């Protein structure tokens, strides 16, 4: 058997994107390997969140290419991109983005149910991940009744429940106190250390960034500096 070097999880090449006349990404290239933890940092408005959305296939960039888990995202239609995200990608967005009409337990079980998993198994897994994430609210609570920090715990549980190959997280500990944030960060990073998932963290918090193997710093939609931290 030949040992092939693992294919990169993410390959972004010369990606460009703009909102009306505001340039958000101006030729960004980024490669992420399996098991690697990358922190994307930079001042407000530097393009961090847009980079994450383009990498995860949430926005279609206006220029350049994005290959996620070996798939050229531009070549996939919306349904195929959704399937790819649901089964192999975990996403934690800044404001949780939970489904408002579902309870927290249903929110976390949802990706498994949509992927055709057995209902009982999906709920058991969701319950276990909510425990690990340290959610101290009832499992039938609607998202609107959660605090910011509780919402982030649910969002992290939902991102990890499918055992994804790559996790994209935008300010995952933004609404949390230090100790709660550390716990959630450990949970996200555990996916890299225990299962070899790649983790891309967008953060303005230096302490969060210091957990990464590599820091990619953006300014004005470009990569300003890269530093290997490991």
């Amino acid at each position, binding site marked *: 058997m030949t040992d092939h070097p693992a294919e990169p999880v993410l390959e972004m090449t010369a990606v460009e994107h703009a909102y009306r006349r505001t340039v958000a990404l101006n030729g960004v290239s980024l490669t992420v390997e399996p098991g690697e933890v990358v922190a994307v940092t930079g001042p407000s408005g530097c393009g961090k969140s847009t980079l994450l959305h383009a990498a995860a296939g949430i926005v279609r960039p206006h220029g350049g290419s994005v290959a996620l888990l070996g798939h050229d995202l531009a070549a996939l239609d919306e349904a195929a991109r959704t399937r790819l995200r649901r089964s192999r990608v975990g996403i934690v967005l800044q404001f949780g983005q939970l489904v408002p009409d579902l309870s927290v337990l249903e929110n976390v079980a949802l990706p498994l149910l949509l992927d055709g998993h057995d209902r009982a198994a999906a709920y058991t897994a969701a319950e276990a991940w909510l425990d690990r994430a340290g959610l101290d609210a009832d499992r039938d609570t609607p998202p609107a009744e959660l605090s910011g920090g509780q919402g982030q715990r649910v969002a992290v549980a939902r991102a990890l429940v499918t055992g994804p190959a790559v996790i994209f997280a935008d300010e995952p500990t933004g609404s949390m106190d230090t100790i709660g944030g550390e716990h959630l960060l450990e949970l996200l990073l555990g996916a890299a250390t225990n299962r070899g998932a790649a983790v891309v963290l967008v953060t303005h918090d230096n302490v969060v960034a210091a957990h990464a193997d590599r820091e990619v710093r953006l300014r004005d939609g470009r990569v*300003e500096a890269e530093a290997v*931290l490991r």
Partner: protein
Amino acid sequence: MATNEVVLALLRDGPAHGYDIKRDHDAWFPDTRPLAFGQVYATLGRLERSGLVEVLETRTEAGPERTVYALTERGEQQLSDWLAEPAGPAASSAEEIVRKTVAALRTGANAGEFLARQRAAHLRRMRELTDQPPDGDPAARLARDHLVAHLDADLRWLDLAVERVAAGRGTNDHFPATPEEANR
């Protein structure tokens, strides 16, 4: 404190005598203790013996004798080596990091590269500290948290330096060598 290297940086703009060096030093670091004349001359003597500065001339016009010093090639090299090396990222390095950053900006070193190197050194140290959390010992953890918080404060200050560099100039990477130049 890296007085030797700071004096080399002060000579970077051209030959100067001890009085100029003291005056410029105090202008560069207005919030630190002024450099004593005795310290200036002791430092210059040390640097001369090491071949890092040389005596250009001794003026004896009206008033006291004034020796003009200049940076040698070795001195220039020593200065760039010092600036190329990030300050030791530790809580106690706060003073060195300020001196090094100000000297780098004032002497026209590539500010962007300098600040990126320093940021990376700090983040690496922070990562080392957060990589091995001292489990089960809250006091040890607090001591570590203290170091991390200091590194974080330095990092925020470095970010501010990047913003100031970006806001204070158009396209070049240069800070004025003196406050007077900045006000011209």
